[in-house]
C-alpha cells in the first residue's frame, strides 16, 4: 500500500545541514498498522509528512498504491484524497462547524452531493461518539473531541490509508484514551494505518509492526513482542529504558 525507497530530507539553515530523514526504506501493507516511535528530533514526523507529500523530500521515492508521488506527473491532490492525515494540533477549520469540517472536502474534492456528504459525516460523527456536536464550532470542543472530529474528517474522504502524526501529544492526559479508543477501533476494522506516537501502550497493543527511528534512520523494525521484550539494538534498548 505504502512503499518508501531511500527517502532523504535535508534541512539547511545557517550553513548547517540536517539530514532529518536519511534514507528510509519501508513498506506498509494493506490492513497493516505500523507504529513509528523514536526520540524527539529523530525525523519520524518529517518522515510521515513525506509520505503524503506535505514535506517535499530531496531524493528517494514514495509509492502510494503503486503511484510514485515524487514523479512530477503525479497529481498529488488525487493521491492525498486517498491518504487521510491526522495532525498533532488537530487543525480543524475554525470558521466552519463540525459538520462542515467533515463535508467540505467531500463536496469540493470528491464532488459528492450535499445530502450524501451530510449523511456520511453524521455516520462518522456517530462512530467517533460526538454526533450531538455537529453544529458547534471547533473552538467549543475539548481537545479530545476536536481530535476525534479530525479523525472523522479524514475518514470522510474514504481514504485507503490513514497517517497519524502524534495524534495524542497535544492532549490533556485524561483525553488521550478517547482518541486512542477510536484509533484502536479503526485498526480492528482493518484500516491501513501509519502512526507516529509516544504512546507505547498503543504501540504494544495495536501495532502489527514497530519502527524505531533515530537520527533520520530506521534503527530497528519488528513485531511489538520482539520490540518491547527483546530489542536487538543498543540505541533501542536505551530509548525503551527511558520511556518505559
Amino acid at each position, binding site marked *: 500500500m505504502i512503499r518508501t525507497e531511500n527517502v532523504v530530507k535535508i534541512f539547511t539553515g545557517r550553513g548547517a545541514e540536517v539530514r532529518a530523514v536519511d534514507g528510509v526504506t519501508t513498506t506498509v501493507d494493506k490492513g497493516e498498522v505500523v507504529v513509528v516511535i523514536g526520540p524527539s528530533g529523530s525525523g519520524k514526523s518529517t518522515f510521515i509528512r513525506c509520505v503524503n507529500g506535505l514535506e517535499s523530500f530531496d531524493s528517494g521515492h514514495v509509492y502510494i498504491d503503486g503511484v510514485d508521488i515524487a514523479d512530477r506527473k503525479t497529481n498529488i491532490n488525487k493521491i492525498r484524497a486517498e491518504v487521510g492525515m491526522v495532525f498533532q494540533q488537530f487543525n480543524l477549520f475554525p*470558521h466552519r462547524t463540525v459538520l462542515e469540517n467533515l463535508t467540505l472536502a467531500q463536496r469540493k474534492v470528491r464532488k459528492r452531493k450535499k445530502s450524501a456528504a451530510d449523511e456520511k459525516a453524521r455516520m462518522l460523527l456517530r462512530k467517533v461518539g460526538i454526533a450531538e456536536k455537529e453544529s458547534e464550532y471547533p473552538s467549543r470542543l475539548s481537545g479530545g473531541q476536536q481530535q476525534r472530529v479530525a479523525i472523522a474528517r479524514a475518514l470522510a*474522504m474514504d481514504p485507503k490509508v490513514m497517517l497519524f502524526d502524534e495524534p495524542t501529544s497535544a492532549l490533556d492526559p485524561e483525553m488521550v484514551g478517547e482518541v486512542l479508543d477510536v484509533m484502536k477501533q479503526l485498526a480492528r476494522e482493518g484500516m491501513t494505518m501509519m502512526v507516529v506516537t509516544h504512546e507505547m501502550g498503543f504501540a504494544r497493543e495495536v501495532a502489527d509492526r514497530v519502527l524505531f527511528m533515530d537520527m533520520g534512520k530506521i534503527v530497528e523494525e519488528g513485531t511489538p513482542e520482539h520490540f518491547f521484550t527483546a530489542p536487538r539494538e543498543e540505541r533501542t534498548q536505551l530509548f525503551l529504558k527511558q520511556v518505559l
Partner: protein
Amino acid sequence: MKVAQKLWPWQLLLAAILIVMAAGIYGSVKRIDYEWRWYRVPQYFLYKAEDPIKISDDGIVEKITPAGDTAKVTVNLVDGSRKVLEVEADTIRVEQGEELFIGDTVGYVATWRLGPLLTGLVTTMWISAAASVLGLAIGLIAGLMKISRNYTVSMLAAIYVEIIRGTPLLVQIFIAYFFIGTVFNLDRNVAGIGALALFAGAYVAEIVRAGIQSIPKGQMEAARSLGMSLPQAMTEIILPQALKRILPPLSGQFISLIKDSSLVSVIAITDLTKSGREIITSTFATFEIWLVVAAMYLIVTSLLSQFVFYLERRLAISD
C-alpha cells in the same frame, strides 16, 4: 486587594477640559472679530431653486386661475392653439389680456435641490466607494502575489507596494491625471479613482499578506492533506479566516481612503472639499464652511466604523 474606581470624577474632569478648550477657542475667535454667519450655511445643503417658465410662441393671456400656492395661466397662441402653464402664485409676471412675445417669462416654478455640500458629499462617497472596491481587488491580488513562491511574481508585487508607499498620494494623483491621464486621454474621475485605488491597493496588499501569514500553517496542511488544490484551500480555508482577521485594519484603511479622497479636489473633481472651497470663494464664510465640511467627513467615517464594529461582532460567532 480590590480597587473600586469611581468613574464620575474622571467624567467631570473630561467635561471640564473640553469646556476650557472650547472657551479658549471661543475667546480667541472673539479677539479677531470674526463675524459668524451660520444662517448662510443651510442653503448649501438644500435650496429652493426658481426656474422661469417661458412662453414658446407669441400669444395673449386669456385667463389666470389661482389654485392654492400655484396658479394656472392660460395663453392663446397665435397659431390658434391654447396653452396652460402652471407657476407659483406669487411669482406671476403677467396680467389677463396682456400680449406676450416668444420667450417672455410667465412666472416661476420652485423646486428643492441638493446644495453643493450634499452633491459634494455624494461625489466623495461614490469616488471613495469605487476606489475601495477597486483597491480591495488590487490589494487582494497584490497580497497573494507577494506571498507567491515565484520570484518574478512576488517581486512585481513588492515593487508596486514599495513605489506606492514611498511616494505622496498628492503626487500620485498629479501623475495619474497630468501624465497618465494625458497619455491615455483619461477622464479626471477615472484618473482620480485610479490613483486612489492604486494607493489603497498597496496598503491593502500588505494587510492581506499579513492576514494570510497569520493563519497557522496547519490550516493549509490540513486542507491540502484532504486533497484540496492550492486555490481551493486558499478560497475555502485560508482567505475566509484571514479576511475575518484583517477586517479591523482593512476598514481603517477604507476610512482613511474617504479622508484621502479630499485630495482629488486638486484635479478639479468637485468633491466635498472642493465644494467647500467653492462656497467660501462666494461667501467668505471660511470658518463655518470648513467646520461643517469637517463634521460631514466625521459623520461618514464614524458611521462606517460603527458598521464595521457591528460586522465584527456578527463574525465573532465561531470564536
